[in-house]
């Protein structure tokens, strides 16, 4: 059997009990031609260094666990082909996130921002099950479907320069999800969400770098969602000021 070619994976390591700051460790390993970057990390953990900590689960680009920075760019490592890279590949934890250990980052801030946009159907009156499912046309579903595809992998947060410089910023995925609910015909909570959107760190902190949409592995286009939200938000604000509009908020 022919010998497999080798690559050097340079992995960022960090153990808060042992290291002052993150450091790099090099692993030279044989690689299969159809491997994703995640396969290389799993090989290292199983065969070379069991102390390497990283998050992963589904390995089919739907659970969102395995986001990392590979050669400087935010990638979903279970989807990213190792053959796209040269002989030396740098794998680091996601940028813009505090690091807990090795390639594992702290995502609690995302959970906080996520909740702020009220990501659920808001209705004045809850529907009864006996009423059956509501009607929603395929076109109405299509209006928001793309924005419902977010797997919460947070690559968009890792790529966004505003997230980097404005820690209060809600961020692309949270805003895209809020926008998804705003567009859903079953929802009645647009006013409430728009109030959150125009708050400090809301949608108007976005200066449209478009990095989020560039790195999104599920083609959600959060940048599009944010710009659409901006327009909708201004319309919402203006209609409030009109007589009977409900007043400023």
């Amino acid at each position, binding site marked *: 059997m022919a010998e497999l070619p080798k690559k050097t994976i340079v992995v960022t390591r960090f*153990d*808060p*009990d*042992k290291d002052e700051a993150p450091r790099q460790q090099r692993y030279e390993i044989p690689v299969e*031609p*159809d491997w994703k970057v995640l396969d290389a990390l799993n090989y290292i*953990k*199983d*065969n070379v*260094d*069991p*102390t390497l*900590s*990283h*998050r*992963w*689960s*589904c*390995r*089919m*680009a*739907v*659970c*969102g*666990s395995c986001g990392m920075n590979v050669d400087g760019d935010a990638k979903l490592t279970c*989807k990213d082909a190792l053959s796209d890279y040269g002989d030396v590949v740098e794998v680091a934890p996601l940028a813009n996130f505090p690091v*807990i*250990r*090795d390639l*594992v980052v702290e*995502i609690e801030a995302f*959970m906080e921002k*996520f*909740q702020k946009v009220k*990501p*659920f*159907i808001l209705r004045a009156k*809850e*529907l009864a*099950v006996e009423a*059956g*499912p*509501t*009607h*929603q*046309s*395929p076109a*109405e*579903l299509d209006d*928001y*479907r793309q924005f*419902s*595809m977010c*797997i*919460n992998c947070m690559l968009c947060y890792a790529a966004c320069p505003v997230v980097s410089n404005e820690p209060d910023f809600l961020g692309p995925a949270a805003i895209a*999800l809020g926008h998804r*609910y705003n567009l*859903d015909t*079953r*929802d009645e909570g647009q006013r409430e969400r728009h109030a959150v959107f125009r708050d400090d760190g809301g949608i108007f902190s976005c200066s449209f770098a478009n990095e989020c949409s560039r790195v999104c592995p599920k083609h959600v286009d959060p940048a599009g969602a944010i710009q659409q939200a901006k327009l909708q938000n201004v319309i919402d604000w203006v209609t409030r000021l009109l007589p009977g509009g409900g007043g400023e908020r």
Partner: protein
Amino acid sequence: MVDVVRHDVVIVGGGGAGLRAAIAAVEADPTLSVALVSKVYPMRSHTVSAEGGAAAVPPDAKDDSLEKHAYDTVKGSDFLGDQDVIQYFVQEAPNELTRLEHWGCPWSRNADGTVATRPFGGMQTPRTWFATDKVGFHMLHTLFQHSLRFDRIVRYDEQFVTKLLVDGGRCRGVVALDVRSGQVRAVLGRAVLLATGGAGKVWPFTTNGNIKTGDGMSLAYREGVALKDMEFVQYHPTGLPGTGILITEASRGEGGYLVNSEGERFLVSRDYGVGTKAELGPRDMISRAIIQEIEAGRGISLPGKLGQYVHLDLRHLGKAKLEARLPFVLELSRTYAGVDPVTQPIPIRPVLHYMMGGVDANIDGATPLPGLYAIGEAACFSLNGANRLGSNSLTELLVFGARAALHAMRFAKGSAAGSETALLEQAKAEGARLDGLRGRKRGGETVAGVRHALNLAMEAGTGVYREQASMQQAVSEVAAIKQRYEQVSLADDSKVFNTELTAMLELGNLIDVAEAVALAAVSRKESRGAHACRDFPKRNDGEYLHHSLVHFGEAGPRFSTKPVTLGTWLPEERKY
């Protein structure tokens, strides 16, 4: 030092079943405090990967009825499903999927705005609700996002439950390892629900993600609760080469063909018992048909890949239909198999996917241990009997997640909190055990090495087709692996996010599950549903119309049986 927190109901596992249970509990009683303890953040739960759909008789259905859905499920289970469970299931199914629709689930629609349905394996009429081909993803995210409305659901994310706390014959909490910090925590409650999913990682070729390690099954098993019907593991017909990534049954539901190396639709041209249903027969029969085709020399080899495959041909569906109804299938085939289904057939083979068996529980989700409940894939009620129909399990999570939560809630309210002394002692001992495990040095074994051996042993002994000899071999090999587990040395002694430690704990759980599967398999000397024994190729209702039970024993697992609850339908020949 063990941290202590107290709640009314403790749910272990944050997937579809766990989230539905948490929501049901707090909606029924807003004063309840519910802990949701999960080893991963809920949106990572494996429910997320389900693709095809969730079954329920649509509210306005003209050609369908609850009776038909029930009959399909009973027949699909090869008459091992408990019919009281099945009757309740089909009745509540439409309500649950409707509820999910109200909560925002983006079900795909007909032109008139009503919820669309698609045909699915073993169902006599289309009743599978779907959200393109990412139904598990949409259901999980809808449930998780809806759960954020309730402050009384307190989440403990990335906390690995290692032991149940049992005192005075009642389950009264769990011990959880905080993966991030290494802190051990006693989560006390008056009822505990296990919603930890199946254990596909026992096998090497599986659709399951890394986290499917049978944790809840092992937790219950170690406290004397039996694991039921463990021999029945479902091989999904269509998994991608190498990775085992799932290609949904919906690809056949939308009209896809299964084709051998000679280009023939073997399910149509040869008799595999699926009749006119062809590609939409039940999964156990289709998987066996594919294996038989491969064994007969009509399989397809792939360069660089082990084993042989057949083709799933979707080309005749056309690009437009594929992009509208099966976009995830397109993405997966292109990314992970290097194949474009629009122009090429997809190589696939049967892959381990689901466990019909699990923690012995009744229609209320109650296990024989008071205070302990089990739901979802982790449990066996049994809804699915010897073989599950596709799209029943997602609905199962909702129906029984809700029902079990209400029963657990009633149990919790009806029981006194009681003394904590014994529980805290147990928790302290468990904490010491975990501290000693971290970075321990024993023999020359590694976690990955022992896990690999377990995978190979279980693949050989509990594949699609089994023989008494190979199953017996699996039983002894798992026993040997259990000894090797005691000799595993660990390299990582860190307290912070130690994933070697969690992998070690998961391996222990996998071994428990494997020993139960192997023993149950060798004890069933007939073929039924997904358990196909070459030595006993026929179904034997006279001697084997029962559920298998495996109990943990210090000297080795013990086997026993339990009757099936029959109902409207008595066992008949299973032909389609």
